[in-house]
């Protein structure tokens, strides 16, 4: 499952052009162009509800966009057949926001799941691979526990072990820091850094915790109002003068992302605008 042959190394791993998505009558993306190069950690940041997770679901082909082109490792995700998509997904590790461990399997079986379903490996080998990955996330001792016996941080580490069990070329971390205490958060950060540096896995990090992201990300793309509002290295971006970045990085309550949900005129709704209807 090593990175596959074809495209030249300098070409972007993921290429998105003119992405447009409308969900439940709400425009999520309107003309997103995005290139994610091989290697390194690319962070996708943005206010809650801007469709960062939706973007990831587009990349993995779980949700077809309304328009646009998405090419991942030479595969046209939008037009790919189910088999092609499955072949692509075998090379992608995905860490879900809420870990998504299978509740009726032990930690060991959860990590072994992708191996057992796709490949017919001897039990001995499965055992070795799974224990190696569990060791990497520091949970080899928890192999026989059920997911319900783990804390949130441990569950996320198990999910991470599961995501890397087949040595993917790309890992997508969907909000890996949400709801973690500082210790668990740093453990995850350390793992992301280690996986990226030692295994050379391309990583996409979807998050909105700036302090944490800054420690690992090589590039940041800021998604806002259905577009890529800004992109660049973390230092560049925090110095940048786009109103989006300024609001987001300074955490201002009001700005291009409005404090108020769209509403009719306040005075008019209270019936105070003298001139009548």
């Amino acid at each position, binding site marked *: 499952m090593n990175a596959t042959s074809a495209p030249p190394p300098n070409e972007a791993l993921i290429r998105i052009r003119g992405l447009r998505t409308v969900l439940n009558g709400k425009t999520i993306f309107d003309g997103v162009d995005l290139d994610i190069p091989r290697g390194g950690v690319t962070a996708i940041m943005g206010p809650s509800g801007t469709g960062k997770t939706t973007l990831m679901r587009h990349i*993995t082909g*779980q949700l077809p966009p309304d328009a646009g082109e998405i090419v991942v490792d030479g595969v046209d995700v939008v037009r790919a057949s189910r088999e092609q998509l*499955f*072949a692509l*997904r*075998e090379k*992608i590790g*995905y860490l*879900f*926001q*809420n870990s*998504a*461990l*299978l*509740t009726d399997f032990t930690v060991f079986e959860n990590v072994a*799941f*992708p191996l057992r*379903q*796709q490949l017919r490996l001897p039990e001995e080998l499965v055992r070795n691979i799974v224990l190696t990955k569990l060791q990497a996330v520091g949970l080899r001792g928890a192999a026989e526990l059920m997911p319900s016996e783990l804390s949130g941080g441990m569950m996320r580490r198990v999910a991470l072990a*599961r995501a890397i069990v087949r040595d993917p070329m790309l890992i997508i971390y969907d909000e890996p820091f949400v709801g973690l205490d500082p210790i668990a958060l740093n453990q995850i950060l350390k793992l992301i850094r280690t996986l990226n540096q030692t295994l050379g896995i391309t990583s996409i990090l979807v998050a909105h915790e700036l302090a944490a992201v800054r420690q690992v990300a090589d590039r940041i793309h800021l998604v806002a109002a259905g577009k890529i509002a800004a992109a660049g290295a973390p230092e560049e971006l925090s110095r940048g003068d786009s109103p989006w970045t300024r609001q987001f990085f300074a955490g201002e309550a009001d700005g291009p992302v409005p404090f108020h949900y769209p509403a009719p005129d306040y005075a008019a709704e209270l019936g105070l605008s003298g001139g009548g209807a």
Partner: protein
Amino acid sequence: MNAAHRAFAPLAAGLAQIGACGRFLLHVLGAVPRSLRYLRETVRQVFFVGAMSLVIIMTCGMFVGAVLGLQLYDVLSRFGSAAMSGTVVALALYRELGPVVTALLFAGRAGTSITAEVGLMRATDQLDAMEMMAVDPLAYVIAPRFLAGVIAMPLLACIFNALAILGAHLVAVSWLGLDNGTFWSNMTASVDLWTDVVNGVWKSVAFGAVVTLIATFQGYTTPPTSEGVAYATTRTVVFSSIVVLALDFVMTAFLM
């Protein structure tokens, strides 16, 4: 115009739901061949939906049989035909009560647990996670449950019937004093293997398919919230009961 629109909206929503369920059935049937590689999962599900329902099925079977024995003995003795009690109990069970009551109990016991389980898998992204691990959740999660329902329901109905006959025998023979030989010989004289027993088995196969289809559909399409799962579970019981009874009428009309 607006009022008419509002009046028809639930109807349209209901039709859309039926259409979606039909499409889901096609997808599930399409996934059945692919699910054969997860045979072990199907075996596990037969255990959960079948073996775990045994206690309720056996207890209820016993009581339904006992009450049938009691009622029919009483009613039939008014016509001097108490000897036919066993026959009527057996016919009522094999043709109607066995498949239908088992299906209703199954919807309450196994259907709800399937909906809740699949709904929770949806709510906690487990189904998406499988998609991402290149495992088709329809083949791995849904089809094995569907198959398990189709396999388990007729077996449960047979067990229900056997226990009910036992219950009826207990009441009519041991308690009310009907002659043991009369009970059995009248039954064997008029119950036919094909038109009574086997047709009942067909019915319960169909009910097994319908109940598990509704249960998995409700779970699979549930909104990923805790209320979503709760409502879906309720809907499973309500829709299963209605569809089972309606289908029972249709199948009876065709099988007669």
